[in-house]
């Protein structure tokens, strides 16, 4: 009927193919997101806290706050 024969389309295994593609993609994306969160947020935050408290002098900090006048009990 038609002048040129069309190629036979994929008849079977459509869901399996889609699942494989999307499963691999989903695993990669979630691993990527978890890794970037770990390094971009979690480790960075841990480092920030470690750096802050390495040379922290709480008495000096308290004196600064007292001089600024925010306490009611220690003027």
């Amino acid at each position: 009927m038609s002048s040129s024969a069309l190629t036979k389309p994929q008849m079977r295994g459509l869901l399996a193919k889609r699942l494989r593609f999307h499963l691999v993609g989903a695993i990669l994306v979630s691993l990527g997101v978890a890794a970037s969160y770990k390094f971009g947020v979690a480790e960075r935050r841990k480092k920030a806290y470690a750096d802050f408290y390495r040379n922290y002098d709480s008495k000096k900090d308290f004196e600064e706050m007292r001089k600024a006048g925010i306490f009611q009990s220690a003027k």
Partner: protein
Amino acid sequence: MFFRAAWSFVLGKQKGGLGMRKVHSPGDPAPSKGKVPAYTNYYAQRSYPMPDEPFCTELSAEQRALKEKEKGSWTQLSHAEKVALYRLQFHETFAEMNRRSNEWKTVLGCVFFFCGFTALLIWWQRVYVFPEKPITLTDEWKAQQLQRILDMKGNPVQGLASRWDYEKKEWKK
């Protein structure tokens, strides 16, 4: 696509709609593309592609002859006859049915237009309806509040006080 189906249902044109109507045959079996017949009982959509009733039910004499020929072997039908039979049965091909349209431009334009109109309304409201700002929202009060937070060293590790340089008394670069 769904709107056309819903609308034709409301108008009673669909099967089981609010008022049943007889099908109005458009005449020739190949209607001009892009021109939908005004009234039709035909309700096929992409999600419901093969309804029971054909598109044209009132057939001319030669169309009836063609339907008789269809009852025989299909290898004897010419290409034009097969197309004619298709057009009797279906209103549009899938390609025609799924054609793109420029409706999205209209939709987006109207959305933006009404967003802008809403903005004008809100502006008017701000000028003519809102009362005076409370004292806590004035700039002097907010500056004093910020100074107090910095004195208390709020969030000194990663937050606000960590961005303030206490020696130079300015924000860190």
